[in-house]
């Protein structure tokens, strides 16, 4: 017995499955699905919302569910605007043959970008249904309301269900109309489905093992793939004898230039084959930078640039007192629980790849380019995926699986090992940050000069009011491949900025909270900070031997966060423990409180990993700790007492909440370490000095 095969619906089958009486035509849908997201043409309602004859609603989105809760949000958004119970909404995600292109799932864009797009589509569908019902009942549209999946005419107590409207011949054409620009969305104050917690739609499948991740899918005749990896970065294959591997039963070896892989009937057989290939391969290596010289390397190879002057050099020269410091944060792995995996099949001149990725249409383009195919001959399907956090090596694993499948003439499932993922995917870039600031005679900040080398410019601008400020982000020659990561460089930039603010407060002889508030005009940031210190009991904190308190705040992507930390230090052992964190977060109107709370917990604990232990170590082009036993992410025992408070600003459009809650954790803890032992922390992960 083998696992059930993948759900291989074509769009045509799919529409048939949804039932006759669909309000859309196949042609209309294919056109919209192929147009992609780059187009400025108004999209037809039917590219977003489908209505079944049984009254069920199907919403289509190119977003990906990675555990962040996009599926529930989109379901809620649809239910809200169409006034149906959430259980009646089916969400189809990330299948390039079926859904519109909503872009890559990244940058906290689902909430502010895709949710409004879905709401507009659903609201437009609602207006169409009202118009159809008005015709059917012979009444004016303004006398009609929508509730519980039906259009109601209160004066005469008549109703027409969505199912009845779906069966009307005229409905198909009506729903192929473009989504009007000025469609009216439901105001926050009237929300019934948005703004409340709804359970994760597929929770039952997750707890029964029924959900199939890309790494679980099978096809008849499928083989398991493995890829031969170089022994080090920059290594080039000079010779390879494939005979021993090919002699193994059932093994197919694929060699195309530098790409070498194999396929076999079991994963163990494929692994044995790739181990034989590794033994029979000769490589030419080249010198590669190592951890020990990382900061010198990044500094020496930073791109040139001055940045705008903004009067900063003059203001620094004139300042009563100047301070300078340098901060470092290590390379990190995202380490989603499901490593990159793909199933690839070539059939009838088409390539279909099921995989973990954040970017269905981008991956389709990459596959089309890799194999010289027009995009419509490639289909990418992304089942709800086992975590991402800015990475799914899927983008590479898909091409590799497809290459193996093409050469082997069989469907191939390829799952990267943890070690492959930790070595050959990409990393949160290490950051080297140089910062300098000037205080006037009153202890006010008058100049700020901030340079990030290698990590990027997210949240690099200071939220504090400083007359002369300059921030620069410069690339460098990164020894490890950098890529996106949850909250990106906002982590490093806010760590350096908020630690340095504490150093400046001390220089100014001020309490860190009072010093911040004196320079902070942004009302939303002030509010989260003031709320956090009150909940934490900042003013009442009691200094005692071995205990430290710290705080930090920050803003990124239209959301605001403040964190307070309490730690204890064992000076003899040189260890510390984060005892308590209090965090207040605000991202406008909250769409799903339970899900947002989960996201904030997740951000805080993930951020804790970068503080406690996480650091990719490398030497001569080799990763030294490419496994969980040596790259230690947070575990249950690391979790401190958490007090998380979400501020709900129903007067402000929702922003995403899955990233920014990370960014104040590390500086709050680093500042608490200083409070405890009087030593400034300028490196992540934090290592205490030996006493």
């Amino acid at each position: 017995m083998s696992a059930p095969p993948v759900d291989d619906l074509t769009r045509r089958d799919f529409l048939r499955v949804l039932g006759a009486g669909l309000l859309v035509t196949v042609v209309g849908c294919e056109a919209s699905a192929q147009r992609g997201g780059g187009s400025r043409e108004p999209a037809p309602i039917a590219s977003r919302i489908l209505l079944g004859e049984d009254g069920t609603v199907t919403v289509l989105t190119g977003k990906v569910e990675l555990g962040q809760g996009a599926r529930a949000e989109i379901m809620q958004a649809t239910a809200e605007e169409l006034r149906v119970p959430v259980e009646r909404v089916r969400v189809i995600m990330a299948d390039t043959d079926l859904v519109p292109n909503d872009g890559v799932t990244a940058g906290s864009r689902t909430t502010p970008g895709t949710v409004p797009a879905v709401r507009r589509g659903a609201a437009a569908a609602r207006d169409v249904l009202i118009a159809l019902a008005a015709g059917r009942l012979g009444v004016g549209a303004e006398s009609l309301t929508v509730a519980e999946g039906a259009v109601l005419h209160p004066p005469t107590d008549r109703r027409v269900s969505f199912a009845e409207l779906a069966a009307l011949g005229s409905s198909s054409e009506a729903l192929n109309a473009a989504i009007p620009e000025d469609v009216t969305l439901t105001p926050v104050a009237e929300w019934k489905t948005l703004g409340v917690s709804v359970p994760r739609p597929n929770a039952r499948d997750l707890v029964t093992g029924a959900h199939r991740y890309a790494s679980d899918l099978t096809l008849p005749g499928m083989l398991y793939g493995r890829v031969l990896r170089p022994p080090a970065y920059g290594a080039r294959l000079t010779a390879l004898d494939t005979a021993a591997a090919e002699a193994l039963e059932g093994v197919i070896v694929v060699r195309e230039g530098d790409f070498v892989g194999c396929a076999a009937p079991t994963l163990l057989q494929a692994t044995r084959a790739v181990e034989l290939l590794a033994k029979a391969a000769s490589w030419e290596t080249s010198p590669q930078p190592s951890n020990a010289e990382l900061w010198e390397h990044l500094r020496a190879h930073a791109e040139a640039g001055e940045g705008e002057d903004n009067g900063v050099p003059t203001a620094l020269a004139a300042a009563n007192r100047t301070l300078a410091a340098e901060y470092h944060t290590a390379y990190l792995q995202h380490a989603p629980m499901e490593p990159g995996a793909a199933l690839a099949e070539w059939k009838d001149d088409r390539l279909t790849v099921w995989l973990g990725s954040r970017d269905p249409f981008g991956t389709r383009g990459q596959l089309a380019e890799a194999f010289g195919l027009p995009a419509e001959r490639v289909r990418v399907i992304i089942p709800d995926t086992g975590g991402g956090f800015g990475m799914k090596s899927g983008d590479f694993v898909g091409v590799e699986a497809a290459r193996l499948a093409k050469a082997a003439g069989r469907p191939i499932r390829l799952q990267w090992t943890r070690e492959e993922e930790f070595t050959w995917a990409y990393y949160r870039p290490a950051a080297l940050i140089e910062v300098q600031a000037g205080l006037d005679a009153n202890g006010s900040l008058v100049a700020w000069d901030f340079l990030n080398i290698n990590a990027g410019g997210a949240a690099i601008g200071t939220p504090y009011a400083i007359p002369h400020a300059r921030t620069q982000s410069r690339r460098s020659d990164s020894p490890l491949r950098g890529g996106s990561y949850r909250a990106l460089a906002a982590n490093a930039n806010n760590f350096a900025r908020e630690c340095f603010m504490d150093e400046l407060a001390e220089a100014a002889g001020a309490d860190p909270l009072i010093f911040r508030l004196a320079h902070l005009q942004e009302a939303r940031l002030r509010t989260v900070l003031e709320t956090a210190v009150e909940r934490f009991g900042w003013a009442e904190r009691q200094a005692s031997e071995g205990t430290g308190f710290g705080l930090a705040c920050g803003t990124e992507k239209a959301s605001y966060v403040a964190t307070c930390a309490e730690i204890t230090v064992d000076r003899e052992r040189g260890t510390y423990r984060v005892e308590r964190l209090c965090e207040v977060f605000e991202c406008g109107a909250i769409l799903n409180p339970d899900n947002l709370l989960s996201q904030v917990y997740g951000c805080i604990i993930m951020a804790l990993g970068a503080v406690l232990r996480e650091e990719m170590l490398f030497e001569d082009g080799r990763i030294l700790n490419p496994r969980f036993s040596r790259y230690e992410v947070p575990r249950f025992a690391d979790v401190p007492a958490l007090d998380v408070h979400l501020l709900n600003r129903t007067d402000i459009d929702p922003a995403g909440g899955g990233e920014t809650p990370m960014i104040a954790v590390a500086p709050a803890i680093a500042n608490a370490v200083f409070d405890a032992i009087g030593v400034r922390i300028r490196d992540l992960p934090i290592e205490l000095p030996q006493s």
Partner: protein
Amino acid sequence: MAEEVRLTVNGTRRTVLSDPQRSLLDVLREDVGLTGTKYGCGEGACGACTVLVDGKPVRSCMTPISEVAGQRVLTIEGLARGDRLHPVQEAFAEDGVLQCGYCGPGMILATVALLRANPRPTDAEIIEALNGHLCRCCAYPTILAAVRKAAARR
């Protein structure tokens, strides 16, 4: 060379023909078609591949199939009784405990084993029992609450 291995999986007796060195994880996923058990690290450091063997949590990625001959293996697929979820599954399904869910099967089976041995665990005991299980969504606070809830309902 392939050998016959007899074992019981989720109450059903099975004979698998397998290289004896293949892992229990691979045999469950590839031969038996039970993909609820997950690969996470291959070194027993993450707990994603946890199944119960004769009631005890075992890292199936590190367990050669030959070692479980004659034993009873319980995977996540065998936990519910028909449509009725096990109380631990129920607690994990409520309140959006899991995010991506990939750690869930291992986490749930480890909890089932814990609560059988210790029906009223303290928080410290729960943390000790589950500390070998990673959740990269870092849903630890909600998972801890779910375990408490499942224990309270027994």
